[in-house]
């Protein structure tokens, strides 16, 4: 099922809600979602309408790449790139299961071929090269395909002089591809070097959760870095650190707010304001050197988005 079909079928499902029949347990569960943070039971449709942000405690749920695109990118504007790329099994890796079987499982769960969706789309009318990672696919892990799709996206952005936006969410490197997954860090960073030297804008958005090789490569290399509230972001995982240093870490360790306090991200932006802030930043960095804008109130976005 490609992206267009997916959006179409979802639209159809929404237009024809069938809730008259008594619900099976499964259906009942799908209808309600419990907030991870405040434990409130939320009506899933309302939660979706609220961009998967708990209306009670503002907890930002993990969302799929396609949901993110639907939320953030202007309707029908998204043109996917490299949709056909999928993983090989260079190591013939087997742990408790062979790698290809795990790949199939991941695809069955996420509906995606790989853990990142890349393409070109408009954000409130501004064209950008956009990459969105999906933690729901193989833990958002970066293997050859994720690295390659990100690299190609960057190259596409550079060739077409587009601003680049990558929404990261990842558990780290794809172990099943061994050293080749590690090399994706070098690959993506190397391509970003050329992109940056060309004077183009890259905004990195960090979402729950972003770890390991993704954080330690393209995700931390944004000209500007935005994090979603509450997102946990780091290089090493909390448990590994606690085992190493043999002490408890602060409760808010590695949250977006903690990183903000430690000068690692430019702003923490609520999901509801994300598109607006991105549009503002794209506008601010577009145009030629010394260009003047006509009004002083271009794309309106309140400063409260940046938490002082």
């Amino acid at each position, binding site marked *: 099922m490609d992206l267009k079909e997916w959006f179409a079928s979802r639209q159809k499902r929404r237009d024809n809600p069938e809730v008259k029949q008594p619900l099976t347990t499964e259906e009942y569960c799908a209808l309600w979602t419990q907030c991870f943070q405040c434990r409130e039971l939320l009506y899933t449709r309302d939660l979706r309408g609220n961009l998967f942000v708990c209306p009670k405690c503002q907890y930002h749920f993990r969302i799929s790449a396609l949901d993110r695109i639907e939320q953030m990118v202007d309707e029908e504007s998204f043109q996917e790139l490299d949709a056909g790329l999928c993983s090989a099994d260079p190591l013939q890796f087997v742990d408790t299961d062979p790698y290809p079987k795990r790949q199939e499982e991941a695809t069955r769960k996420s509906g995606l071929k790989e853990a990142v969706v890349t393409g070109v789309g408009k954000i409130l009318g501004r064209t950008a090269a956009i990459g969105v990672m999906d933690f729901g696919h193989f833990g958002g892990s970066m293997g050859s395909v994720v690295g390659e799709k990100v690299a190609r996206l960057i190259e596409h952005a550079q060739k077409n002089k587009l601003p680049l936006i990558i929404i990261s969410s990842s558990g780290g490197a794809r172990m099943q591809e061994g050293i080749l997954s590690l090399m994706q860090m070098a690959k993506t960073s190397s391509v970003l070097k050329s992109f*940056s030297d060309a*004077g183009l*804008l890259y905004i990195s958005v960090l979402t729950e959760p972003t770890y390991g090789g993704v954080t330690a490569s393209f995700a*931390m290399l944004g*000209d*500007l*870095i935005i994090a979603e509230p509450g997102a946990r972001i780091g290089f090493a995982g909390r448990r590994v650190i606690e085992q190493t240093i043999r002490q408890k870490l602060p409760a808010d360790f590695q949250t977006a707010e903690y990183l*903000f*306090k*430690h*000068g*690692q*991200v*430019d*702003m923490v932006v609520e999901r509801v304001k994300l598109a607006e*802030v991105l549009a*503002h*930043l794209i506008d*601010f*960095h577009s*145009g*030629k*050197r*010394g*260009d*003047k*804008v*006509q009004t*002083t*109130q*271009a*794309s*309106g*976005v*309140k*400063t409260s*988005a*940046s938490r*002082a």
Partner: protein
Amino acid sequence: MANNDRKPVPLEFEQPLLALAAQIETVEKQLADNPDIEEDLTRLHEQYELLRRSLYAKLRPIDHLAIARHPQRPYTRDYFERWDPNWLELHGDRKGADDPAMVTGLVQLAGHKLVAVGTQKGRSLKDKQACNFGMPQPEGYRKALRAFHHAQKFGLPVVTLIDTPGAYPGMTAEEHNQSEAIAINLLELAGLTVPVVAVVTGEGGSGGALAIGVANRVLMLEHAVYSTISPEGCASILWRSADKVSEACQAMKMTAREIFHLGVSDEVIEEPLGGAHHDYALTANNVAAAVARHLDDLCKLTPAQVRSARQSKFRRMGSMQDAH
């Protein structure tokens, strides 16, 4: 948005004015009963205006210092917010800290998109403490450096607002190499090919001020001061007496007019009568207008010219003689 709705708190040298104001108030109260004193009142008002003007016309250096340090003086955020209600603040040095004493952001000003940088003193006691009373740590200077490099990459002009007693003299500040943080900024600012305009809005204290002050144009608000060392420090070292602050202020030639005459600043920006704290909006406008004018000028130069003009400007500074 911080405001100056509160009545300006008077300074010590303003006491004669206050006394007269009190007298006027007393007379005004009697006006209803004695309509014939209206003429006196008018005269008193005239006197008040006269005194007010003459008072501010012949301020001593230490009076300027007092205005520059006035607790209600507009601070960096007050300007950015008035210039561009939609400005976006950028945070952090990416290496472990976000120094609140240094503010960096993306600001629009009279059609110019700019990278704005400024020291921040903090208004409430809690803020003041967080900001170290406007004294940045090395991390603050490195945050500013990130902003300078951002500006360079995207061809955006840099505007800096300076109001700091100086770089923070602390233990970790030294451990984290305050000297290097300042020195690198001097070096990197000198190398930028985008226009840089600096405005001393309050206190321009020492290397901690200069670290964001190597600009194509250096402007100063009328009551701002700029000096190599705080007058207190100067008095205690040269006069070995804390009482000689006024003498030190005088000797160091640190007021906006004097700095202008020494060729170190390019323009003195007028303040509302009595000082910037009497009218934030007017002050912000005056600064915006001056900055925009200089930016318009500088935007006509090529990148290479912008840099070499800045380098030549500072290369010429100094006063010496050659015995040969």
